């Protein structure tokens, strides 16, 4: 009886998790309060350098050292990402997109997350970004 209950509970949670993560466009989920947030480190050379180190430690494993992505791991240099507001990217780093493999980075302190965003934005869009942008949505 307890084992059957545990199995049903696990199956229910799994189904709920998969349904909750079914949405493709993460930008639609960003609250206005996050869109209005301003990156305190935007454009600062030291913060960009620090963000580059953090990116190398935590992000490059999936998004590649040049942030162009590979396979199912999306490029961060698409117009879609590069034109997103800093606050929107901050929301993405905090929440992740768990159903699609992007983990939450809420354990990283907020200043470190802003530094990563400053670095990613400093890279700018790359050639062919429109097509990659469509794929990453």
């Amino acid at each position, binding site marked *: 009886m307890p084992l059957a209950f545990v199995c049903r509970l696990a199956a229910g949670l799994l189904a709920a*998790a998969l349904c909750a993560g079914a949405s493709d466009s993460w930008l639609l989920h960003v609250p206005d309060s996050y869109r209005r947030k301003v990156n305190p480190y935007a454009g600062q050379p030291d913060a960009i350098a620090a*963000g580059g180190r*953090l990116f190398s*430690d935590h992000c490059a*494993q999936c998004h590649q050292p040049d942030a162009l992505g590979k396979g199912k791991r999306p490029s961060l240099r698409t117009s879609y990402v590069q034109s997103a507001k800093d606050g929107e990217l901050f929301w993405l780093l905090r*929440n992740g997109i*768990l159903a699609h493999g992007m*983990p939450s980075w809420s354990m990283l*302190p907020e200043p470190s997350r802003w*530094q990563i965003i400053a670095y990613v934005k400093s890279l700018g869009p790359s050639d062919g970004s429109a097509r990659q942008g469509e794929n990453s949505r």
Partner: protein
Amino acid sequence: MEEPGNLEISNKNTAASPKFGNPFGSATVEFEFGTTAWWTTEFYLSGQTTGNDSTVFNGFRVENRFRPLLHEHWINPVLYVEYENLNEADRSILEVTGHDGVQDYIVPNRIQRPEIERALETKLILSSNVRGWNISENFIAEKDLNESDPAEFGYAIGISRPLALAASPRACTFCRENFAAGVEIYGGLGDTNGFGWRATSQYVGPIIAFSVPRGPTIAFSPNVGLNDNSLGVLYRFSVTYEVQQIFGHLHR
């Protein structure tokens, strides 16, 4: 939770010297794999050596943890389910449940080793990240699958913070952001026959962690027993190394 595709290998060591028993040291090797962004699976192997006694292999644990809520909240729950197959000589003390206490660690290995405990352990892990502080509360329930023993309960609460919240622009080994410090308190909460603090062991202690850039994370925590049922001082030391995108390495 482990990032998907990453394998974290950890060596967790525990050492103590019970007042009326022999000093012991325990080593647990933990393999933690990020199956998905919301599911982490782990496998543990444990052994121990006791002074004036012997060195024995204790057994294994298999564990899965799930994050049921896909967005970040003030409090983020993680559900943890573990199967343990360990003999009674286990000294890893990864957590304390029921009425675990110093009396369990003074029995000779030859008596405890043949006694195998197969148990199901569940945890509700609640964690929060606030202004650089990580706060974690674990509520533990464990049931021995062999016997009609009552279910046992325990808890662990920890808080820690990096010494610097922003990273340095230049690579450095001993930068403040590579260090974290905190406090943890944990202990038993009795069992279904007697829930509460009576005849349980309780520990509290600081924890200091150092992350070597592109290398392992080393953590040390001396824990002080808070009552007569606890070990006087319990030393915990761990070395953790993360292999990023393990299958990518294998395919190269």
